């Protein structure tokens, strides 16, 4: 269902496409037959914070990359108090899995809405051009599936999310329906001088803001179905103050046994998405060596950042080589959100300590009086 505002937004988008034409002018019009002749690759998605295996530098020409994602509505526990939450998920996880392709590849997604679900869903790819990011072509009822193809014309990390219509849009997003696609430049990542940058590992951290209603006594309410939770949840959403801000779908989901693992000398790419709300990742005791705050690899990365800003509705990427062993907290540096609301993850990093970088010169002891 298109609103007047959406129609206007569509018109604006069409104007912008014209402006972008020079970038695409080199590519000759492609026919269906030519696309059909391209090599195809089928990817099995994996649950975050992990990312499916992929080449950082493309080893061949463009291809069609096939993905399949079932949508799953389900009840999950989102904190250490055992709060139950009526979640909506892509592929069963919050966030949805990260997809990786190269610029110029075609993304071909089969989206499935099993009949065990209760609501229509769709997908809006910020990386895609036209049709509300694909949302207008993918709205499916329980018991239906749809296949969408779009060309990955711009490199970078981009959010995807469910956007059915009207009031359903924010509700589905803050119920968990968002994820990220990373479109790598065919020649891989580069620094500001055009020199190649590589990572040994990539972690995908999706940040969610949840708005869980409370009862008269202040306890979180649980609901038997999504529909029953809707009216109360919207009231909390309209206050704009989340009850939970978490990584990977639950408070503490990336801590303890599930902490992310690395070692001294290893370079990690940390992709961070927030589909709804601004956030500011910070690695306590570390840095961002190269950071694409906006996530778009055609822009040179910022260097040596302490904290980086991820705009609501976008995904950014930070490259860091660990220099000291230890337990690192990776937080949303609104520390109230990090500690009280849940936005904390941990990296467990093995390796040799470097006294040159840091040393406790004198251990704690009573204050000396002269």
């Amino acid at each position, binding site marked *: 269902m298109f609103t007047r505002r959406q129609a206007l937004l569509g018109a604006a988008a069409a104007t912008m496409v014209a402006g972008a034409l020079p970038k695409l002018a080199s590519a000759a019009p492609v026919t269906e037959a030519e696309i059909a002749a391209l090599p195809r690759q089928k990817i099995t998605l994996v649950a975050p914070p992990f990312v499916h295996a992929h080449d950082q530098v493309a080893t061949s020409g463009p291809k069609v990359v096939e993905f399949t994602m079932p949508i799953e509505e389900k009840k999950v526990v989102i904190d250490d108090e055992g709060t139950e939450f009526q979640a909506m998920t892509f592929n069963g996880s919050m966030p949805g899995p990260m997809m990786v392709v190269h610029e110029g590849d075609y993304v071909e997604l089969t989206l499935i809405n099993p009949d065990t679900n209760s609501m229509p869903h769709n997908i809006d790819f910020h990386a895609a051009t036209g049709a509300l990011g694909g949302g207008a072509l993918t709205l499916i009822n329980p018991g239906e599936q749809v296949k969408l193809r779009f060309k990955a014309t711009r490199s970078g990390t981009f959010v995807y999310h469910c956007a059915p219509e009207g009031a359903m849009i924010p509700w589905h997003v803050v119920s968990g329906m968002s994820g990220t696609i990373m479109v790598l430049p065919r020649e891989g990542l580069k620094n500001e001088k055009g020199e190649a940058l590589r990572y040994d590992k990539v972690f995908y951290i999706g940040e969610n803001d949840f708005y869980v209603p409370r009862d008269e006594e202040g306890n979180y309410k649980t609901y038997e179905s999504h529909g029953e939770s809707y009216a109360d949840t919207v009231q909390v959403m309209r206050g704009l103050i989340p009850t939970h801000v978490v990584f990977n779908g639950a408070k503490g989901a990336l801590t303890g046994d599930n902490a992310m693992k690395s070692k001294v000398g290893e370079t990690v790419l940390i992709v961070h998405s927030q589909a709804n709300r601004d956030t500011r990742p910070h690695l306590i005791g570390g840095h961002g060596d190269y950071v694409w705050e906006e996530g778009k690899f055609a822009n040179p990365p910022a260097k040596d950042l302490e904290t980086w800003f991820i705009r609501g509705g976008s995904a950014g990427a930070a490259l860091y080589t660990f220099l000291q062993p230890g337990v690192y907290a990776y937080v949303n540096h609104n520390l109230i959100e990090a500690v009280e609301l849940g936005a904390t993850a941990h990296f467990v990093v093995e390796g040799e*300590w470097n006294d040159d970088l840091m040393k406790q010169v004198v251990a704690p002891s009573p204050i000396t009086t002269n």
Partner: protein
Amino acid sequence: MHVNLFEVAMGAVASLAVPFAAMGVAGKPVDTPRLPLAETVEIAATAIDYPLPGEFLLDARPATAASMKIETPAFRIMKRQVSLADYELCVADGACRPADARPNPLDVPVTGVNWLDAEAYASWYSRGTGVTWRLPTALEAAVAAGERFGGESFTAQADDPANPAVRWLRRYREEAAAKRPPDPEPKPFGHYGPNSMGIEDFGGNVWEWTSTCYERVTLASDRKTVLSKTENCGVHVLEGRHRAYMSNFVRDGRSGGCAVGTPPENLGFRLVRDNDFPLIAWADARLRGLLGQHSTPF
């Protein structure tokens, strides 16, 4: 807790007033005991191997807590933790602040109480029963916990003098391995059963406040001699499945934990019943309180 001049004066008067107990303190009649006495368990005099609470340094590096054989005289301690119902009586009397307990049936331990709340309850309950009740020391809690004493579950030993991260990583893994599914709902009394001494529910999901202050101690190479010591009575020791240290004002164990670790699910307490010469005990407690409180910021 403020140790003000009034209390100092009261303490002095009390110690003088012992022979005239019936007259009460400072002209005020002693409250007629009106509250029933909580059931207690008599713990016989014993000696245990006890890992001292606090943080220890040896050669400027974290060291395992000094452990020593310590004797304790006999004492009596509540069989059960203080209940939400009993705590509510103190609240109704205006002597305790309402606990941050979850809405619960009343026959569960009180939770969501800080050290100051526990102290307030102890003095209210002492007034109401005419018997002196106080928080156990960490040593008494260990003795009463018997086979359920958790103490320092995770050794603080610096594994590699050249690499402090080895200890951080090991502790992180140990804590992760010990992590349990969340179960913060306080359970009815008896849920966790008695220990071999008949003390109920120790080591369940309620950690218990003690009167012992946090200390940082620098040991000599014999691991026993104390070279220096800094006491911080703004932080007290709690015993439970593992030992915890919390600021006096913290009521929620999860928010009182450090950035990395498994914090207690709930904070509550049980009390030790001192001898039945109330004014002597009262004065004694006051004086001990005064001596022990010099660095308390509250």
